[in-house]
């Protein structure tokens, strides 16, 4: 039984991996094209001193310039003079890549188990606050310096994972034992997370010396350390160690999914729930377990957001969890693919800032483009139709009119 299912999944994966990459690339191109049209057209409604005049209308935005800033600005303009690998923009890109990798893994693990975890954002918010509070509390009893780093950083990341895992377990249990659809409950729990954490903040953890809603700063030695010489300056809020940890987690999760019996049961629950039940997988416990794991990864994203980027928890949490959905979908929910997709969205996120400084185009464009990428990835049939239209390829064996894998 197990061998048969294993073989089936293996064949599906191998057959689709090339196509998956092709569709992801095509979706990216399509989203960029549509986004470019949007930029150009919306430039017709903006006001500016000089722009492109066409038939009496002035178009203020140049899509080519916008994409130049978006993609190359995110790397620190490598084609221009004076480029150095340790530049601010690239550090921002890699920091976003790291955080998005954790968030993307969180969404991907749930997806592989057949669950839509839209709640990574809330798990990140809760995990991040628990990280900050735990580290602030523990720092009183731990000596400073290297010992402090060795104790507090793992402790903080663990606290984030526990907080996020607990918050992810809630919708898992509600689904398993209450039958509540996890898409709706996780979205609602995102709102609840914001309300509860900001209540906790004003109740006990607010930094008394600041007017901003935020916790006190953790000691400097409790932040993610940077590698001397080859690493980035601590002022850039990015550590190669964190990126390394993210890569290790990707590989570890890929190994777990492919080689462990837990990973096997998780995948089968996602692909063929009936077969999983028949094969003796405790379905309800699996739902809770995979949501807990997913939440823990979201919590780790929150921990690194706190310990690497700000050194404290802020009430205004960026939408890393929602971007994680896009990362995971683009990656086909493959842990190793998450790395590549996270880098792409890291570029978009960091490039959004350079759009904001170098052009008049609103940085929210990045949100639109991410949404478009998801939309296009969701419709592979669209690209297959185009492919059939223009390439005149023979139908692949096993794929009829509707895409054999979906039926």
């Amino acid at each position: 039984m197990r061998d048969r299912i294993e073989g089936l999944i293996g064949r599906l994966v191998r057959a689709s991996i090339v196509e998956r990459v092709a569709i992801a690339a095509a979706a990216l191109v399509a989203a960029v094209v549509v986004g470019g049209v949007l930029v150009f057209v919306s430039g017709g409604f903006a006001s500016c001193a000089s722009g492109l005049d066409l038939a009496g209308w002035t178009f203020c935005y140049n899509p080519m310039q916008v994409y130049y800033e978006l993609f190359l600005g995110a790397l620190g303009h490598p084609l221009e003079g004076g480029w150095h690998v340790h530049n601010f923009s690239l550090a921002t890109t890699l920091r976003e890549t790291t955080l998005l990798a954790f968030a993307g893994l969180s969404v991907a693990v749930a997806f592989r188990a057949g669950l839509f975890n839209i709640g990574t954002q809330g798990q990140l918010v809760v995990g991040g606050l628990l990280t900050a509070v735990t580290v602030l509390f523990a720092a009183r009893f731990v000596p400073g310096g290297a010992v402090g780093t060795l104790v507090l950083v793992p402790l903080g990341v663990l606290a984030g994972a526990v907080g996020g895992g607990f918050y992810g377990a809630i919708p898992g249990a509600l689904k398993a034992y209450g039958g509540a659809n996890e898409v709706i409950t996780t979205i609602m729990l995102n709102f609840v997370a914001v309300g509860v954490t900001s209540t906790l903040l004003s109740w006990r953890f607010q930094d008394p010396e600041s007017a901003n809603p935020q916790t006190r700063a953790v000691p400097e030695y409790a932040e993610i350390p940077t590698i001397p010489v080859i690493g980035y300056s601590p002022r850039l809020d990015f550590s190669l160690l964190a990126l390394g940890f993210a890569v290790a987690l990707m590989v570890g999760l890929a190994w777990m999914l492919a080689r462990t019996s837990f990973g096997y049961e998780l995948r089968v629950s996602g692909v063929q729930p009936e077969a999983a039940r028949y094969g003796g997988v405790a379905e309800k416990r699996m739902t809770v377990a995979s949501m807990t794991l997913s939440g823990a990864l979201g919590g780790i994203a929150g921990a690194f957001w706190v310990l690497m980027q700000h050194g404290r928890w802020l009430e205004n949490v960026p939408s890393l969890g929602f971007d994680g959905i896009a990362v995971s979908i683009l990656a086909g929910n493959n842990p190793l693919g998450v790395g590549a997709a996270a880098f792409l969205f890291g570029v978009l996120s960091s490039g959004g800032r350079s759009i904001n400084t170098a052009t008049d185009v609103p940085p929210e464009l990045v949100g639109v483009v991410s949404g478009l990428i998801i939309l296009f990835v969701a419709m592979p049939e669209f690209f297959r139709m185009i492919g059939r239209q223009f390439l005149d390829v023979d139908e692949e064996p096993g794929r009829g009119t509707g895409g054999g894998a979906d039926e």
Partner: protein
Amino acid sequence: MSDLLSRRSAAVALAVLAAVTIAAGLVFPDSWVGTVLSVLASPGTHTAMLRLAVPIALAAIGGIFAEKSGVINIGLEGLLIVSAFSAILVTFRLGAGESTALLSNHWWGFAVGVIVSTLFALLFAAVCIEFEADQIIAGLAVWLIALGLAPFASRIVFDSPNTGNVGTFDAVTVPVLSEVPVLGYLLFDTGPDVYVMLIAAVAGWYLLARTRFGRWVEASGENPKALDTAGVDVRKVRYAAVLLSGIFAGLGGAGFALGQLGTFAGGGETDIGGRGFIAIATYLFANYHPIGALAGSFLFAGLDAVQIRLQTYGYAVPTELIRTIPYVTVIAVLVLFGKTRLPEAAGEPYDPDED
């Protein structure tokens, strides 16, 4: 059957809770229970509840059509965002308080809001029906695109993610009838958005339960093969149903924007703040009944109205926590009534060539 039982026992439990609250409030008028009771009893809360119900009820009724036909429209939140934003934008551009072609600019904004939402629904329908996309992912994409598009456009026009203020619809007072106790101020002295909601709910119910089209929608979600055999184009029925969800959600979003908000904050979760998702919980709660969805929306909107008014009393309970009450209630409702049976073919594209 067991589901019906739990619905009934929950109703009894709610009634008992309400009775205890009222008794406690009347005995101790100065306690917090008394305050809650006075908020619950105040006409202002009821009026606010009706206006806050507009986006939830209308999006829910739209969602019923889409899901009944076999297309789960989880992008309702996105439809509310685009319709609310474009309604404000157009009203602002035309000039608030003025008229174009004898019609108040608020109504032009309202119409454009509905059209934009319907166009988005058309896009969603094409993606799901024509290109057989995963409906949940495509719906999320619609939401995320709207979440980016509204502040994007807002920054171009207003130089800020928040729009300018255009004010709200004037209340329409029906002479004589508005003097009727209770029903008078609730139903005959209120905004046009509330009238739109009430009329649309009845129209939605009639369309779904009493017309041939309603039966087609039902069959398209339950047994598309049979509908096809009967000579009705399943794809056309699904297109029509998803477009209807766009129209209803558009009425809700534009009505909410012009009846309640008067301005649109596009930052973060936007002013819609998850009401599209609450709408989904509402129609599951109501078991796909349009009038039931209207009643369910009163529950969530009522909680919202109460929490808004409670904040003004300045209790030690922090506002952020009170604000989560509707969301927590959605979760509780889903756990208690979430086992609604989905239409048989919901979520799957229909392929006539399949055996």
